[in-house]
């Protein structure tokens, strides 16, 4: 499964939204994710991929696609080490 699909599953497990509503251009606000949901999504992603997503980086995410790209970069960087 791709990282994007895995992240969708994480979001669905926390926000309980239909997976088909998640797309790269969509925002957490559009799926009614509140601040605590977003924290849990970030923590879940950090734990799943053993990465760190600093709050200041997370605040720059404009949409779900930004989040996916960021996690993919982190995983790729980790693979290089």
């Amino acid at each position: 499964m791709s990282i994007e699909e895995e992240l969708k599953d994480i979001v669905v497990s926390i926000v309980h939204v239909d997976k088909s509503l998640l797309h790269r251009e969509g925002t957490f606000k559009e799926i009614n994710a509140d601040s605590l949901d977003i924290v849990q999504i970030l923590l879940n992603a950090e734990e799943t991929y053993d990465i760190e997503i600093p709050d200041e980086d997370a605040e720059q995410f404009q949409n779900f696609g930004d989040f996916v790209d960021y996690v993919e970069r982190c995983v790729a960087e980790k693979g290089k080490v």
Partner: protein
Amino acid sequence: MTQPLKGKLALVTGSGRGIGRAIALKLASQGSDVIVNFFRHRDTAEQTAKDVQDIGVKAKVIRANVGDPAKIDEMFDVISNDFGYLDILINNAASGVGRPVMDVDIKAWDWTMNINARALLLCAQRAAKLMEGRGGKIVSISSLGSFLAWPTYAAVGVSKAALEALTRYLALELAPKGICVNAVAASAVLTDALKFYIKDQPESAGHQQATAAGRMVTPEDIASAVAFLCGEDAVMIRGQTIIVDGGTSMAPFIFGGGVNI
């Protein structure tokens, strides 16, 4: 320097930074090996472990979200497999949602209670089994918010009150196993957590508060109290919450109180 905890093994939850890190280093300085638990910041946890090792004792890093029962089980499975025993549990990891009480929804409530209060229950249940036949010490970090009230602190304050109540019940029921259970309640301690909590408040809003002692409480002040409770000199202290606040709570109208996340 005497090492009253020489040969002991301590688990300090949330010990990558702040109060937990100070406790890990203090216990190490008294001879205890330390398991450094963290959730988000591996780098700081690894640094704490390195600093513990530099003191001359063993350290091990375990990642686990103590708000998740499955992760608590996984952490204790590792401890059980790698060591097979535990002498000291420091229930320090904490989180919380700072909202006015009317805005505390079920998710915020559960999040805060699970990390701050339920984690003590689940960790103590597993720790007590690893302390079987050898006794042990369990110390939790609480807050003046368990009995004083501040705006937006309701969820955390209630979770700390639950933690202190659970401390008394654990102290009673684990006493026959030779396990001492206590808590340390801190006032405002200048850590990253406090900086986060008060980031929208003016500098004068309490975090640089005066105390009767004339300075803010430091993580090392809390660590000293915790280390005392982990020693044999404290064996007749059971189920208590020791307040370490520089005297703030004895005169709240003078010193204004303060929070420890």
